């Protein structure tokens, strides 16, 4: 359904301004609904029918599906658009690490630990992996249950249990029922049984079919039984031109959902584990090259509408671009990731400390200030308002130019804080040296291209 405005949503509300939802007015509540900070049920005035109408009206084109429990609860989907500039993407794609019950114990522990401990800090955010996907490759319910227990013991995040055999899924979910795992998967053979398990344990499930008609039919059947906590796996060929078909299929599905096809209005998932089929672990080179292929396929699916990904590789270098890209793609395009443009004091600067300039792109600022901190440098860091652009970009886009630098110098009053007139600029802004010098009257020193070399540079140049 097309996204409604706050005014349109307001019509679904009681218009009493009773305040029992903690908002002063129903209009304020409507705005909160739009921002997804309130849910329909937060309005105590709405009755069954009215509540249902409102819920229908605010359900995103791609339904949002929750699983996991407590602080590890995950919401996937919730999307309204095809291109992020039309609104933004919401359900930041969770990554799950693949575990099979045929792996030896050491491997299982290694993978579980990796999923638990992986952590990268970027722009003040900690990027993590969200879960472990446990699949029953043995066909043995007992072996599967043991593996589920093992993983659950060392891992606190979200879980996916994978088997097409309902009795195996049942055995698995019984062990971790309080964690509300995601069930993978219902297909045209087993959907009645898998649906029963999902309803009994209050968990969502994945519907799998590589035929879109069938996928929609199963989802429709479940929805008619009043079950909508569904994630769709439309199947994926990931090798050669199969990848083209897969991207095409994911695109058709997202576009259909956005155009209001209810049967397909669910989050999409993909497992890239099938790429590893036939790999015996014999050669390190082959393993690295498979990890490369998997990371590439996963990044393209991440851009093209996969709301959940299961990954086999646990190589940090192969995961790193994925978590970074996810942070990028799911950033609200209206918000520039920037810090306040002003003069920052690093360490304990005095009148002879160097003055260094950089941009207010958050990542640039965190990198530069972090490097200076680590090197125990005391200095003034003058952050220029480049509208949140990095150095290279802001030089190209003229956001860092002689007049913005001059204005920042004046405003910061750094002139009266140091007794020298030396300004260190980023290496990537080297070609602006003369302009800066003419405009500011300060001596411009071209610094290194990367801030990790700043402290060595300061020592070498005796600054």
């Amino acid at each position, binding site marked *: 359904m097309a996204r409604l405005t706050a005014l349109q949503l307001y019509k679904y509300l009681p218009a009493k301004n009773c305040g029992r939802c903690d908002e002063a007015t129903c209009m304020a509540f409507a705005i909160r609904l739009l921002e997804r900070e309130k849910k329909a049920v937060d309005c105590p005035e709405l009755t069954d029918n009215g509540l249902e109408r409102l819920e229908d009206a605010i359900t995103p084109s791609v339904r949002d599906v929750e699983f996991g429990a407590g602080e590890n609860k995950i919401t996937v989907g919730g999307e309204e658009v095809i291109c992020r500039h039309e609104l933004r993407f919401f359900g930041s794609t969770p990554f799950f690490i693949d575990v099979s019950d045929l792996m030896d114990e050491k491997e299982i522990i290694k993978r579980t630990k990796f999923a638990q401990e992986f952590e990268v800090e970027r722009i003040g955010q900690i990027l993590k992996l969200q879960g472990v996907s446990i699949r029953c490759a043995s*066909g043995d319910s007992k072996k599967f249950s043991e593996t589920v227990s093992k993983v659950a013991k060392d891992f606190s995040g979200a879980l996916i249990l994978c088997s097409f055999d309902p009795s195996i899924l049942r055995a698995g979910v019984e062990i971790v029922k309080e964690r509300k795992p995601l069930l993978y998967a219902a297909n045209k053979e087993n959907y009645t049984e898998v649906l029963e398990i999902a309803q009994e344990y209050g968990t969502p499930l994945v519907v799998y079919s590589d035929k879109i008609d069938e996928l929609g039919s199963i989802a429709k059947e479940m929805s008619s039984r009043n079950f909508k906590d569904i994630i769709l796996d439309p199947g994926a060929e990931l090798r050669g031109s199969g990848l083209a078909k897969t991207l095409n299929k994911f695109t058709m599905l997202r576009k259909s959902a956005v155009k209001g096809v209810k049967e397909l209005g669910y989050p999409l998932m993909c497992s890239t584990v099938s790429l590893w089929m036939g790999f015996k672990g014999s050669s390190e080179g082959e393993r690295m090259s498979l990890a490369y292929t998997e990371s590439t396929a996963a990044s393209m699916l991440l851009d093209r509408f996969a709301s959940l990904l299961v990954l086999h590789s646990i190589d940090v270098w192969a995961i790193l671009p994925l978590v970074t890209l996810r942070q990028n793609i799911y950033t609200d395009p209206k918000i520039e990731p920037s810090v306040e443009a002003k003069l920052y004091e690093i360490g304990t600067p005095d009148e002879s400390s160097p003055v260094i300039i950089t941009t207010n792109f958050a990542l640039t600022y965190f990198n530069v200030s972090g490097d200076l901190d680590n090197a125990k440098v005391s200095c003034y860091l003058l952050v220029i308002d480049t509208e949140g652009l990095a150095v290279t970009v802001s030089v190209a886009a003229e956001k860092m130019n002689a007049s913005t630098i001059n204005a920042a110098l004046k405003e910061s009053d750094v002139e009266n804080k140091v007794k020298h007139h030396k300004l260190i600029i980023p290496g990537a802004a080297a070609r602006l040296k*003369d302009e800066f010098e003419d405009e500011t009257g300060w001596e411009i020193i071209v610094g290194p291209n990367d801030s990790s070399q700043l402290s060595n540079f300061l020592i070498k140049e005796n600054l």
Partner: protein
Amino acid sequence: MDVEKLRKLLGDADEIEIEDFELESEKIEFILRSQIAANAVSRKPKAPLPGFRFTPPVDKYDSKISEVTLGATKAGGGTRDRELRIGGANAPPFYYFENYCTNNPVISHDIFDMPISLPGHVKKYFGDAMEDPADWAKLRVKKFNAEMITLHLVSTDPNVKDTSVNEACKTIEDVLQAVKVPLIIGGSGNPKKDPELLSKAAEVCSGEKVILSTVDPDMDYKMVAKAAAEYNHSLISLISMNPDEMRRLNKNLMKTGMKPENMIMDLFTGGVGYGIEYTISAMERCRLAGLKGDKYLALPMASATSNAWSAREAWSHDDKLGPREWRGPLWESTTAAMALLSGADLFMMLHPTSIKIIESLIESLSVSKPVDSGLEENNTNNTYTQWINV
């Protein structure tokens, strides 16, 4: 049939179908492997599923992205051994269900007119060839099968080496002699010197149909456009991530006489983690506007993908992040993959491994119409369902 024999048979089977079966014993217990059990369940008669017929959500687009020819052979008045064509898309990138069809994107390999600072593991691919642009170009073509070369004349920047325009033109001539693939002539980014350099380069490359890279509103772009038109070259307009400004610049270029079939636009490619999200959105917006009929944006797009190397993750020595020989090229190719999905038609790339990955992606993504209506299913080699059993 005796029970032992039956049990043995069951042990190896993937599926069993028992016909004319008569039970003579009092009680018989089958222990079936779960796979078989699942299939056994499947044979239970089911209520038919409700019907759902999928119709691909097809939009029609008013316009088509213009096509640009790169390089000129003898027949076209040049000395190149091939002509390449980019552009021509009639739907968003890889929307095969909307009949997406285009020329294959082209990758142009970067070389520089002076040795530049690169991580050692990248330098080792080029060795001494980095000292001489002609040698570097030859290596790119012979060893790495470059279809196209970008010569970046970075040393001409007054703040770098201030190499004179005449000297830079000698370098261009050397490279034109050394290799016969189409060329991109890149300036240093200096807004004062580039117009003079690129205009002179247009004259030196007369007949070769090169691409002059890049022009922006802060330089005398009209001077470059005039030279490009006079000597029949193409040029790349550069605006950082802003579709409105890009539209304005292209409109102005067209006013000076540039034709769409000689124009390419670059919305600046920020690396993964360094602005790629703005690149993606700017490119998507321009491509959609172009397809919907905005003639000033219905142009092929270039991506200077090697910008990805300014990302710290691409080169840092941090062992916790895994081996940099793998991390670096993956950073560049992931950046390229995003540009590809956003509509890039021309890539300027650095690392041979990244280039190889993107070449094979382009090949596999651009096979002529892999999906007819989007409904065609090919189940014969679909192994996806078995991922659970890998």
